[in-house]
């Protein structure tokens, strides 16, 4: 105890206490936070609209209405299609918290793929809409990443940044980073236009175009993407690069100059 009390005035003591406090808070939150809903068993269930409707009534109806007609808390789901359901639920955006901020964030998905398929089947039965894309549509075969880059810069880069790092919009809304987003979900987002993102239907951005865009993102923002120039600094462009050069580059030069001048070369006894 004496040892501990002797060290409490150490310059790093505050930092240590802060880290301990943060660790405790995080641990307690993890223990007491509402546990994820029980996963339905993965046994092969037939994808019936009835099953989907049951899930819908439990998880979605409070905001989107008993028949998907929409309420003041959530938009109508008639005609949004299975692709929209698959995107929103698989990325954890739906169901949303009752009081969300400017934008519903991506979070942990609480449904199994079988359940999502059932939900999607039910929503698709309410009105015709885009279907969930197949592996063949978003896979890398036959894709042209260079063309995809052209399309991405023309259609997507204004919000998502040149390499899909995301960016800010108005009133706290933002275009999320596309890093680590499954190709299927990117395809679905282009097709359906979730939240404030405009949609890019097949009539204006063809299936081949979408495939190219996904191939481009995988080339510049995938797991194996190289950064030949070294630190990419978030890929945010000249702002972060300039800030880094001014703060760390110039800062290092000033620090060296001060260090050189502060050390006297004189043979004084001190």
């Amino acid at each position, binding site marked *: 105890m004496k040892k501990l009390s002797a060290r409490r005035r150490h310059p790093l003591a505050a930092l240590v206490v802060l880290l301990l406090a943060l660790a405790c808070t995080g641990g307690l939150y993890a223990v007491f936070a509402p546990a994820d809903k029980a996963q339905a068993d993965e046994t092969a269930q037939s994808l019936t609209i009835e099953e989907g409707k049951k899930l819908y009534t439990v998880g979605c109806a409070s905001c989107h209405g008993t028949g998907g007609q929409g309420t003041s808390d959530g938009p109508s789901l008639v005609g949004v299609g299975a692709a929209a359901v698959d995107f929103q639920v698989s990325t954890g955006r739906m169901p949303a918290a009752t009081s969300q901020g400017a934008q519903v964030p991506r979070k942990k998905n609480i449904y199994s793929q079988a359940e999502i398929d059932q939900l999607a089947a039910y929503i698709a039965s309410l009105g015709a809409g885009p279907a969930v894309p197949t592996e063949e549509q978003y896979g890398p075969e036959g894709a042209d990443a260079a063309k995809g880059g052209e*399309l991405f810069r*023309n*259609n997507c880069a*204004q*919000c998502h940044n040149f390499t899909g790092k995301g*960016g800010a*919009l*108005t009133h706290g*809304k933002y*275009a999320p980073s596309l890093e680590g987003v499954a190709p299927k979900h990117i395809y679905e987002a282009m097709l359906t*236009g979730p*939240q*404030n*993102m*405009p*949609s*890019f*239907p097949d*009539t*204006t*951005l*063809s299936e081949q*175009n979408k495939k190219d865009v996904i191939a481009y993102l995988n080339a510049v923002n995938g797991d*194996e*993407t*190289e*950064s*030949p*120039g*070294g*630190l*990419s600094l978030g890929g945010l462009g000249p702002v972060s690069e300039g800030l880094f050069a001014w703060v760390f580059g110039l800062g290092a030069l000033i620090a060296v100059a001060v260090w*050189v001048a502060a050390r006297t*070369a*004189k*043979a*004084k*006894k001190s």
Partner: protein
Amino acid sequence: MSSQDIPEENLPAAQDTSQGAVKLADEQNPFADPGLPPHEPRVQDIDERAAKRSERVVALLFTVSMLATVGFIASYVTIPVDKSVFIWPIGHISALNFALGMTLGLALFCIGAGAVHWARTLMSDHELADERHPIEAAPETRAKVMDDFRQGAKESALGRRKLIRNTMFGALALFPLSGVVLLRDLGPLPGTKLRHTLWSKGKLLVNMNTNEPLRPSDLVVGSLTFAKPEGLEEHDHEFQTEIAKAALMLVRIQPDDIKDKRSLEWSHEGILAYSKICTHVGCPISLYEQQTHHALCPCHQSTFDLSDGAKVIFGPAGHPLPQLRIGVNDEGYLEALGDFDEPVGPAFWERG
């Protein structure tokens, strides 16, 4: 460098301090110039072994620089340009870039560090006062210059031979005109170029992605599409100049949600065609939020409400985005019903 091993008689206290004799202020002269403080030697000045060590450090730094330069050349020759390595904490990086940068940086740094260390420890560091001499020249020098000038003026006979004088003035006065004439190349003025774009009545709206003319059914509510005028191809010589003015952003909004009456009239079934060029300083503006119908400019955050005639609702832009009047031709394709009715892009002096 520690001063532990310096012989006692070599310490500054034992040195001759006569050169830095300090005058003190007294009654007569309260602001006496204290002069330079006494010179203090460095370890290297009084200890030959320390000086030798410094010499070796400087030589070592210069040698490292030489090796780094050799390394630079060797990396350039041996490392393939597409080789990639993983270096913590940078990640995957081109091996060649990394090697060239490191060796070049090391070579330059060692030259600088060696020079600084050399100057600080081995070169003479005696303080020298170099007094300024008076700016005015000596009287005899001045007199000589004035005499020379008068003699020169007399010998040139500039005052007497008026023809030479006048023609010389003429030549000197006319010469700068050639420079003035070259300023013509700053022109010609843009004329009406800023007021017109490639859009005209009957031009089809061509999808930038597919290069196909657009039909109203291609655009669903909530979608965003970019269009160029029919006939303009990306490999055209004038493509950049023309698309910079003609770039078009197409959105589709439920007609009931369109607040501006003129905007609704100029749209087709809720399809609105706006200029993509911000009216502030001309950035391409297409950060479109389909739920709020706001378009945001990435440069200075000007925000336009596309459901309300692209009115500016935030930011420095001075005008709403110009809207293009569109309709559908006999074959069912979207077409322009004329050019923009006002200049697109930022305001300019004569815009009105």
